């Protein structure tokens, strides 16, 4: 069964550094998402992306965050200047049109020191 793949599985970075989290969605999906889960807390929606533009974003997704689909397969989340509170598990998801289940990757654990 097709899977959403995320790399790296674990990223450690220093505060203030830029990080790029990468995702390869399922090939025939057109809707892409990023969610995050701070340790011990709920999974939170960050952003949805369709037709090469952001369709919706949460309050968390401020100017430090950006997403891009640089080619036909990758979907990236960039955090420009990481903060300690950005430490979390970041999940990429893809899906058919809204109203259908999402397919999640295994996540990237980001640790900001």
């Amino acid at each position, binding site marked *: 069964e097709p899977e959403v793949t995320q790399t790296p599985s674990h990223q450690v970075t220093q505060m203030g550094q830029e990080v790029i989290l990468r995702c390869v969605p399922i090939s025939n999906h057109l809707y892409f998402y990023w969610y995050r889960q701070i340790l011990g807390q709920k*999974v939170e929606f960050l952003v949805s992306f369709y037709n090469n533009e952001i369709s919706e974003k949460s309050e968390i997704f401020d100017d430090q965050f950006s997403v891009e689909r640089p080619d036909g397969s990758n979907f990236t989340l960039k955090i420009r200047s990481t903060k300690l509170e950005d430490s979390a598990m970041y999940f990429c998801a893809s899906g058919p049109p809204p*109203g*259908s289940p999402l397919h999640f990757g295994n996540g990237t654990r980001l640790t900001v020191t």
Partner: protein
Amino acid sequence: SQQGEEDPQALSIQEGENATMNCSYKTSINNLQWYRQNSGRGLVHLILIRSNEREKHSGRLRVTLDTSKKSSSLLITASRAADTASYFCATDPQAAGNKLTFGGGTRVLVKP
């Protein structure tokens, strides 16, 4: 409470027993979904129930939805040790396609 709250927060049962967990939510929804998360792994979709459905089955899973009470339940019958995981409900609000709101989850431990 916040959108998508599960209860109990944790559940410990013996293999073969049934596990029931509940989810309450606040706003109108398009559908409600249940996901499973094994420790350190991603979320795996289990079942989706639409707002006009009341009950849905998938293998050993049974989900109910009561939109008048804004609540849902997930029943796992004849549990197995492999069912040990965290289970999350996620609501898909009307007119907000797939901006899922997750609950805090129920941690289920199935003892062999």
